[in-house]
């Protein structure tokens, strides 16, 4: 092991230090000065983000720690995504969290630790490292989901997530133990070399177990049952982070494990057939069940299930174009979803309600919030000229190029369905009366987050080239 190995994991070390620093500072700060944690956390993460972007373009890439850890552009792309999502979550939730009792000040430290877990997941070259990263992320989320003080629904969501998450981890570990038994290795490269080209029942079983464990994190149908209840019960900023970053981290792992490690063996034969069905089901169920929802967090939960289906289409394509589509879409999904959740957080804490009917007349009461929500949901629905259109175009054209046309048609039809429920939110905001509801002007960091996500969503929709090129170089660093 050489010292450059440690240079390669600078972002991870910095995030770990920041998390521990936040724990200490939250203890030392006097009651009133707790707001100082927000700038400390945001500027710390911004610095790490800047370094990661530099590393993406100019860093020296290669496996480190005796092949236990990948330092490549694919991992860096996901790290940029996690850090961006975290910064947006922290900025949009400042007032929401400010209302909590003082001993809950460790929220920021927990959030930062979750980022560390995601980073380890995205870079791991070994199933053991991957599993520890996954648990670091998931256990932090168990705590964060049940974090709302004096709220039974939040505690209930926390317990549910704990029980279901623990069972899914057990299934995942069982799958990993099968793979170890078959190959004698937990390193991804060793597994890839050892697995024979023939398809045997244990390989199918291991593939299915791994997929079940990861599918839970992605909220792939039929492993999606937990999502609506937990998204609704959790504090809104946590829901946003769970929907965006945790899902992206699981996708990073799916792409690494399935596309790279199991490429020549089971994936092509069973994996694709299985994933095609699951992706189609995910898109259909997510979009259809979203239609009757009355609560904005539940609506966004089902929408995020559907979005996982679209992303899965890119994984099925199994090509540079497909992975590029996933990376591109995951990044713009961060901005679109964070915009929607920033508005949901703000309106939720101002009005004390997450029901869609309480968004009535939001266009008059808070024009900026209504405009940002509209831009975000239209981007999620894939309406041009917003970024979501370009993302879906990349995903579906990649899968059509590989010959799976019908799954792309399912995606098109379901995108059309999704326009209906997304627009019903817009209709309530612009045509609803809401005469008895208060005016809620947006200001401060939340205003910045909303404007920033809206502008980025519009900008990438009009000029997707820079992000697309980053996604291509990240995808080629992976699929050789």
């Amino acid at each position: 092991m050489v010292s450059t190995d440690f240079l390669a994991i600078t972002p991870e070390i910095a995030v770990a230090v920041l998390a521990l620093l936040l724990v200490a500072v939250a203890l030392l700060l006097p009651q009133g000065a707790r707001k100082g944690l927000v700038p400390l956390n945001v500027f710390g993460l911004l610095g790490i983000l800047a370094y990661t972007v530099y590393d993406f373009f100019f860093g020296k890439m290669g496996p480190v720690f005796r092949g236990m850890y990948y330092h490549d552009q694919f991992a860096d792309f996901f790290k940029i995504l996690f850090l961006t999502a975290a910064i947006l979550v922290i900025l949009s939730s400042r007032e929401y969290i400010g209302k909590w009792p003082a001993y809950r000040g460790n929220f920021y430290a927990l959030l930062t630790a979750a980022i560390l877990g995601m980073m380890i997941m995205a870079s791991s070259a070994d199933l053991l490292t991957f599993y520890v990263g996954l648990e670091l992320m998931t256990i932090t989320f168990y705590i964060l989901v049940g974090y709302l003080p004096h709220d039974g629904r939040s505690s209930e969501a926390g317990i549910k997530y704990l029980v279901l998450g623990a069972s899914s981890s057990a299934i995942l570990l069982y799958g990993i133990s099968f793979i170890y038994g078959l190959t004698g290795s937990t390193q991804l490269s060793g597994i890839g070399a050892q697995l024979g080209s023939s398809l045997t029942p244990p390989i199918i079983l291991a593939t299915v177990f791994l997929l079940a464990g990861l599918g839970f994190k992605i909220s792939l149908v039929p492993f999606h049952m937990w999502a609506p209840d937990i998204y609704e019960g959790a504090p809104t900023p946590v829901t946003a982070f769970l929907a965006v970053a945790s899902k992206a981290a699981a996708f990073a792992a799916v792409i690494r494990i399935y596309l790279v490690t199991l490429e020549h063996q089971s994936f092509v034969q069973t994996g694709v057939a299985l994933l095609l069905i699951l992706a189609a089901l995910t898109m259909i169920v997510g979009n259809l069940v979203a239609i009757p929802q009355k609560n904005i967090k539940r609506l966004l939960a089902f929408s995020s299930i559907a979005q996982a289906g679209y992303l899965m289409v890119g994984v099925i394509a199994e090509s540079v174009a497909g992975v590029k589509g996933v990376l591109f879409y995951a990044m713009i999904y961060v901005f679109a979803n964070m915009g929607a959740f920033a508005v949901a957080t703000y309106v939720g804490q101002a009005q004390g309600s997450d029901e869609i009917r309480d968004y009535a007349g939001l266009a008059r009461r808070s024009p900026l919030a209504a405009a940002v929500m509209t831009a975000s949901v239209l981007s999620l629905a894939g309406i041009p000229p917003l970024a979501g259109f370009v993302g879906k175009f990349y995903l579906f054209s990649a899968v059509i190029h590989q010959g799976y046309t019908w799954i792309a048609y399912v995606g098109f039809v379901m995108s059309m369905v999704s326009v209906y429920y997304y627009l019903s939110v817009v209709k309530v905001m612009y045509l609803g009366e809401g005469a008895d509801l208060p005016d809620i002007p947006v200001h401060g960091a939340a205003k910045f987050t909303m404007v920033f996500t809206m502008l980025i969503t519009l900008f990438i929709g009009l000029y997707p080239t820079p992000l697309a090129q980053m996604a291509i170089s990240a995808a080629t660093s992976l699929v050789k």
Partner: protein
Amino acid sequence: MSTVVFFIFAILAVASAWGVVTSKNIVHSAFFLALTFVGVAALYVLLNADFIAAVQILVYTGAVSIMVVFAVMLTLRGDVRESSEENRKWGWGLFTAGLLFVVIALVILTNTDWRILAGPWTVQNTAASLSKLLLTSYMIPFEASAILLTIALIGAVILAKGVKEDK
């Protein structure tokens, strides 16, 4: 000889696992759980993994089971003899579990391609070789688990504190 010992402890582990699930008194369940852990620890010894066996006894038997008993005693209201209620819908559960067991057992038993070491693993000082691995190749998962435990501890304190202040 070692086959006989294996079966003694394997049967002990499985039988006490059965006891964990069926016992109506949750404290009895916790003690059965400790017995299961001892059985598994003995299996580790048979695999020459003496360090893991010691950790298994120290952490699982010594700490985890006792922690369960403490948690039960501190939180339980009502009669301890009926603290672990039976689930009425066991029929479907039995069916699903049985089916899954048969499928997995068939797959495992029919596969001939498991990577089995040619000879038994005979490193004498497993603690020393483990510690070397933990601080070289497996440094990242090792350090990440340290942060994981810290965070879990902080989270437990925060959540428990909230409950206390509610009252």
